[in-house]
């Protein structure tokens, strides 16, 4: 999976995501599908999210911000 300058790999315990610009690697407790849904949601405030993602919306967006996927 590739998003912006990031490469990622999904594992049962989360998505391992590597920022090619900074060289940093993080493990985010999400599935790849949840990550993509959350990314789309971050670009459109009104986007509706599946309940399981909506419940963790703030936590997920914070995780994406930490790895520079959103700002």
């Amino acid at each position: 999976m590739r998003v912006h300058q990031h490469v990622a790999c999904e594992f049962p315990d989360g998505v391992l995501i590597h920022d090619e610009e900074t060289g940093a690697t993080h493990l985010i407790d999400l599935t790849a599908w949840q990550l993509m849904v959350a990314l789309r949601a971050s670009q459109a405030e009104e986007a509706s999210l599946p309940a399981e993602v909506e419940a963790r919306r703030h936590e997920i967006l914070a995780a994406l911000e930490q790895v520079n996927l959103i700002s």
Partner: protein
Amino acid sequence: MLRLGGVAAHEVARAMVRGRFRLQIGRITLRIDSNLPELEPSMRRLYAHYPCSVTGGEFDFDVAVAPPSLLRRWFRRNASFRLSGDEPFLPMPPDHAHALFEWGANWTIGAHSHRYLILHSAVLEHRGRGVLLAATSGSGKSTLAAELTLSGWRLLSDELALIDGPELFLVPHPRPISLKNQSIDVIRTRYPDAEFGPAAQDTHKGTIVHLRVPDASVDRSCDPVPPALIVFPKWSPGAPLRVDRIGPGEAAMRLIDQSFNYPILGRVGFERLASVVAAAPAWEVEYSSLDEIVPALDGVLVRHV
């Protein structure tokens, strides 16, 4: 093929002085120069079964263990490690020459062999499967590697996991196992016939002794093996045996902390690391008894790999 143990001591010493000594360790050949009388006997003892040359030839790295100046050869003697003439470490007493060589060789390969993803990890093979023992200093990694090696597992490396790609292989680099302090007597007592090098006393890590690698592991030092199991061992005195599975993502994050060159390799390093944790399940093992952990690891290999 010429092996170091088959060459007369004076020939090895002369080749080291004249820049003609080469030692082949797996895929890597070292040119080793030295005019220190302390180094040649320990090299001949610990590397007796390794291919060598005393007439020069190609090499990957040009290293030397020698006095830092002519004066230091006779007065207030000490020894420096050099890579292509550079001295990355402070000099040490001459009776630390062999330990200095081993530390210098680890640094040389870890800091320069970037065709591999390099992790600070012991690597062994058992039942045809590659096993990484990745751990921080003081976790008992080398003691466990020595125990497994002397129990018949093949040693690929005590310190450096060289991970080649894209087919994903653990490349052997079997060098003597570095044992520290109490571990020395533990292994000496359990294996009275094992061969050891000289003791380096009062180093920054305490007393260091190197254990000779069994010939069978040296004979197979050009045979890579795919990774099949990752173990994070932790020795805790008195602790009951605990064997817990950990997720591949968590294993990857721990391995990054133990990597020499992951940041240098960038995307290649990420993809290789992700492939390793995808191919090899990871386990955290806490133990206090070598008698318990060896069958426990064998059991994990049999049941889960």
